[in-house]
């Protein structure tokens, strides 16, 4: 008898294998951070490779850094920070159970993510026109650095490309959130997907916070 009374008091959003809502939320957050730790190491490997080649090919690095578009890189940094703010506010709206602000803030985040990817596309096109895409079409003005520069441009494309891939995945996830929010799937009691995808989106922002100075700013002054 007493047990069924307790069962009746359980909120509808609480899954049966958790003691209470706090424990349920804690489990999701912890799991998400375990995933993000693997992401930190995933990107960490690339940052480590970049550090090694940057110090080994110092001259080539200074030479290639003049071809980085600091203006687009800087604007994109601002765009991503704005999208992180709208995402943080979206999570806040979800916490308060405000459906309309949640949907609009998610749409805004998605649009800002799209702006970032669009500008990235402009930048990639610029590299393509200048024959700075590693491969058979690669040309480099300073012949003594040609091979090393190709390697450094490869690292540029690998790192920004992997970051852009994460952005595309994030855009897909946010689209899913918008649909779920429109179908009234979230409430002030349960908004775990918004919270978790918010963490993912902020993580992608952090990766760019490190990519921007490393790829665009360092070695900019000779």
């Amino acid at each position, binding site marked *: 008898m007493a047990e069924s009374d307790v069962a009746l008091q359980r909120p509808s959003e609480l899954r049966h294998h958790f003691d209470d809502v706090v424990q349920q939320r804690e489990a999701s957050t912890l799991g998400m951070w375990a995933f993000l730790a693997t992401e930190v190491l995933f990107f960490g490997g690339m940052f480590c490779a970049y550090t090694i080649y940057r110090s080994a090919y110092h001259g080539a690095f200074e030479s290639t850094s003049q071809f980085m578009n600091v203006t687009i890189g800087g604007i994109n940094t601002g765009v991503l920070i704005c999208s992180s703010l709208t995402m943080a506010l979206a999570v806040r709206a979800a916490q308060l159970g405000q459906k309309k602000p949640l949907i609009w803030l998610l749409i805004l985040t998605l649009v800002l993510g799209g702006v970032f990817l669009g500008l990235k596309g402009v930048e990639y096109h610029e590299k393509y026109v200048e024959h700075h895409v590693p491969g058979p079409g690669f040309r480099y003005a300073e012949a003594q650095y040609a091979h090393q520069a190709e390697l450094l441009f490869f690292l540029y494309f690998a790192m920004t490309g992997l970051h852009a891939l994460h952005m595309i995945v994030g855009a897909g996830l946010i689209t899913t959130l918008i649909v779920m929010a429109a179908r009234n799937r979230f409430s002030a009691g349960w908004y775990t997907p918004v919270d978790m995808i918010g963490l993912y989106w902020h993580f992608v922002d952090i990766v760019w916070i490190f990519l921007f*100075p490393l790829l665009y700013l360092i070695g900019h002054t000779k």
Partner: protein
Amino acid sequence: MSHPVVPIKVYVAVFLALITLTVTTVGVSKLELGEFNFVAAMTIAVVKAMLVVLFFMHVKQASTMTKLFVVAGFFWMAILFVFTLSDYFSRGWLPGGKWW
């Protein structure tokens, strides 16, 4: 609930700090500071990352267990860097060795 709602002004303050730091890092990169350019850029990046982790990602109000996971992720990356770089940069220190 371990998840109190944060006032909007906190998020806006963090946002403004992030934008200010971005402008600062671009400004500092235009100056001739030698090796200090790298140090300054990385210091600013770490401060920005910490603002995002603590406030946007709510780690400031997270449980000790979650904080441990966050620190562990970055600590393991530090291990990756220290061991890999100490290998590459110490090659040739021993007699007979060659720079890779």
